[in-house]
């Protein structure tokens, strides 16, 4: 067991949480966006995490057998939320349809804030894990001092 695996795995966690944070920011920023390039209101995005065995390169994957217990996290998909958009009655809005209803994104701000807190805490926890790994490795160097 070496410390570099734990560093890589923790850094994959950091990357994943940062990507999650990006989607949360995008959701929050577009909470009232009614027009998008693909038509219709902005749809809420969410990330999908997947655990994968930890290997460094493709070559390493085919030559060595990775330890099945060590898994790093990878963002495999950014899914579009399938909730129906909120309809509000605003006949004077430029985007209003024939009945005067405007489609707004169905984004719950509280939900996004809760997710953001969770992402922040996970990020901090991963940073602590990296610090701990580094401290352990440095104290191993003290053996010979």
């Amino acid at each position, binding site marked *: *067991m*070496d*410390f*570099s695996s734990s560093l890589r795995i923790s850094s994959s966690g950091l990357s994943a949480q940062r990507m999650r944070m990006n989607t949360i920011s995008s959701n929050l920023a577009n909470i009232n966006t009614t027009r998008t390039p693909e038509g219709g209101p902005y749809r809420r995005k969410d990330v999908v995490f997947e655990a994968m065995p930890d290997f460094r390169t493709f070559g390493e994957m085919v030559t060595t057998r990775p330890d099945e217990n060590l898994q790093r996290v990878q963002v495999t998909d950014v899914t579009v939320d399938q909730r129906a958009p909120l309809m509000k009655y605003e006949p004077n809005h430029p985007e209003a349809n024939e009945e005067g209803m405007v489609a707004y994104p169905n984004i719950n701000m509280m939900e996004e804030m809760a997710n953001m807190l969770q992402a922040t805490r996970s990020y901090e926890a991963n940073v602590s894990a990296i610090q701990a790994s580094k401290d352990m*490795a440095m104290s*191993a*160097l003290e*053996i*010979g001092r």
Partner: protein
Amino acid sequence: MDGLTISSSDALLEKGQTLRQMGQSRISEGLKAPEMGPSVGGSIDKTFSATLKDAVNQVNALQKASDIKMQELATGKTKDISEVMITAERADIALKLMVQVRNKVIDAYHEIMKMQV
């Protein structure tokens, strides 16, 4: 290290070895002495020189193992720092112990050579 510690070698020396038995001991390569004499003590099967040769070989093996581990760390083949440091430390301590034993034996030899016969 098995077989040779400071206390066991001191015990041997304190048994009052004769000069002929002292001549048997060859720790450092520079110290040339004629091969002679029976084994020391009734309970030990090997001669003193064989014991010391074994000990030197063990120290050498430890040094080589430490070298290989260091090379593996340098190329990144192993990333287990604790193992490398422990191996290096073992080799270091073994070498230092061996040098101290050599010093003691040489001092004892000088001491005996000073005796007026």
